[in-house]
């Protein structure tokens, strides 16, 4: 008990230095945790996009919906496959869609923005039960009504309820806002597929998404379809498809972030070493006194290590607290892999809090190692500064 009091009070005694050092440590932890939060937020968004029971079909070789092209005839036959769920109204749980990146000129600054547009049909809600309309209603098939995801409504004032989007020389009225559990669909605009196809001069669909009877059948389903020479399709489990779409971006965030964090954590560690070194140098007489009283070298080592660990701990808590403020902040950016605009946020997990604090403690420990060892190795007589006479 006396040890922690001793260490804490010593940190406080030189509080300016202590504060500066732990701020440096805290900043590093802040960035570290923020990077983790961002990458995780991205993966979470992508991972939640899509249902494990769904299979998404693209034309063979297409890497994304934008490149893919499925004809009407093809999709007709594909929808009739066994294993696809049949709904209450005898409809097959299959939705044919086209996906496009729309270029919109934003009203406020005239700058360009990408909008992910999906031409779909009402059966989409049966295929994707996790997408729900929270305000307004679904679009009327055959009209130029659209619904927008919650992120779109947030980012574009011109896409709010009852507003009108203008593209393709037509007017599209926003009649509803939907939420998709924080997934990529939240950054999309959905409307009638036929209207979209006409407007974009498309004659083929981008993709078809099927809801399967259960998640286990997918591998067999996939094998069967991909081998059939009649169809030229590639089949993926819906979540896996979307996750793959953000791989590049997630990797970029992690690599850049962690590379940088490691680099400047060295700076913070050196700062801690400096602080602890000075502390030791300042307290040599004290060390000699303690050794005289009967405290061992091990005790001295422990005391200084404890101090640097506490320093790290305090810095870590500060950094994590700062990062926690970022929680739920969303940013919207273009995903280079697909060209699609995607909104995702910082997402904090308890694991990250632990990792951040551990990282800080680790930094403090490394930083304090050499000074603590030097303190422990002092010769008593020298430490007391006695004359050798």
């Amino acid at each position, binding site marked *: 008990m006396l040890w922690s009091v001793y260490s804490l009070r010593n940190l406080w005694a030189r509080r300016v230095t202590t504060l500066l050092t732990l701020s440096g440590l805290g900043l590093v932890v802040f960035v570290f945790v923020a990077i983790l939060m961002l990458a995780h937020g991205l993966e979470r968004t992508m991972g939640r996009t899509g249902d494990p029971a769904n299979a998404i079909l693209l034309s063979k070789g297409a890497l994304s919906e934008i490149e893919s092209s499925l004809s009407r005839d093809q999709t007709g036959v594909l929808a009739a496959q066994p294993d696809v769920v049949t709904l209450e109204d005898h409809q097959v749980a299959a939705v044919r869609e086209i996906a496009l990146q729309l270029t919109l000129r934003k009203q406020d600054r005239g700058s360009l923005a990408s909008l992910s547009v999906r031409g779909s049909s009402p059966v989409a809600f049966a295929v994707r039960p996790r997408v729900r309309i929270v305000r307004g209603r679904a679009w009327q098939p055959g009209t130029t009504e659209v619904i927008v995801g919650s992120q779109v409504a947030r980012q574009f004032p011109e896409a709010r309820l009852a507003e009108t989007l203008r593209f393709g020389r037509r007017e599209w009225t926003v009649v509803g806002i939907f939420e998709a559990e924080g997934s990529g669909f939240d950054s999309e605009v959905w409307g009638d597929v036929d209207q979209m196809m006409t407007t974009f001069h498309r004659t083929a669909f981008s993709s078809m998404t099927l809801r399967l009877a259960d998640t286990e059948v997918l591998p067999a389903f996939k094998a069967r379809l991909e081998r059939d020479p009649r169809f030229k399709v590639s089949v993926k489990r819906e979540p896996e498809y979307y996750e793959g779409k953000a791989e590049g971006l997630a990797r970029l965030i992690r690599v850049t972030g962690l590379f940088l964090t490691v680099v400047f954590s060295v700076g913070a560690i050196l700062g801690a070493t400096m602080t602890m070194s000075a502390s030791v140098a300042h307290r040599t007489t004290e060390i000699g006194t303690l050794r005289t009283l009967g405290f061992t070298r091990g005790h001295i080592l422990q005391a200084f290590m404890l101090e640097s660990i506490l320093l790290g701990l305090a810095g870590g808590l500060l950094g994590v607290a700062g990062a926690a403020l970022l929680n739920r902040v969303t940013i919207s950016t273009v995903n280079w892999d697909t060209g699609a605009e995607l909104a995702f946020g910082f997402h904090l997990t308890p694991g990250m809090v632990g990792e951040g604090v551990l990282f800080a403690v680790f930094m403090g420990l490394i930083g304090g190692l050499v000074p603590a060892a030097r303190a422990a190795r002092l010769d*008593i007589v020298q430490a007391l500064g*006695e004359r050798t006479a």
Partner: protein
Amino acid sequence: MVDPVVSLHNVTKTYIRGDTEVSVIRDLSFVIPAGTFLAIMGPSGSGKSTLLNVMAGIDRPTSGSVVVAGTRLDHMSEGAMARWRARHIGYVFQTYNLIPVLTAAENVELPLALTHLSRRERAEHVKTALRLVGLADRMDHYPRQLSGGQEQRVGVARAIVSDPTMILADEPTGNLDRESADDILTLLARLNRELGKTIVMVTHDPRAAERAQMIRHLEKGLLEMPP
């Protein structure tokens, strides 16, 4: 006769300074009986601090045997020495050497942290020690809030709190004014007289030495034999 507390035999301590060898203590042999209040006097450079340090186990002799409180010191490991010192030695420094971030009471408690006493028992001992030196009312003050004399009294309290076999004092009054110095010496004398504590004090001040029972002079590493 009672076993002597300190028994030195042919103790020599040399330092290497650059190319030369400096003998600080030369072939010293003497004993200190229990219950003595001994003052060792000598000019600076005479080796008296070194002698004290050897007795405390802080410094090792180059040759010779050192037996203190029944234990042979010169061959002990460092860890064992630290444990031994905590049990048997109370040390009073010229510069008081209180830990600045601890209160008077906490400073006095420090040696007890090395024991297995409970918190309550420790608190009891601390109170007793502080009362003995007359500073019970300044328990929660920090060293910077105390005068030099008061700091040294805390130093003495710290030296006696774990009831050590022997108290060693290195110029305890060296930094004090007349009055405070007097208080400390009176205190030490009391400890010796009333509690039978063995005290070895190093000093260059004759007036301080007078307050002790016995005086020995150390000159150039050699102890002047009593007449």
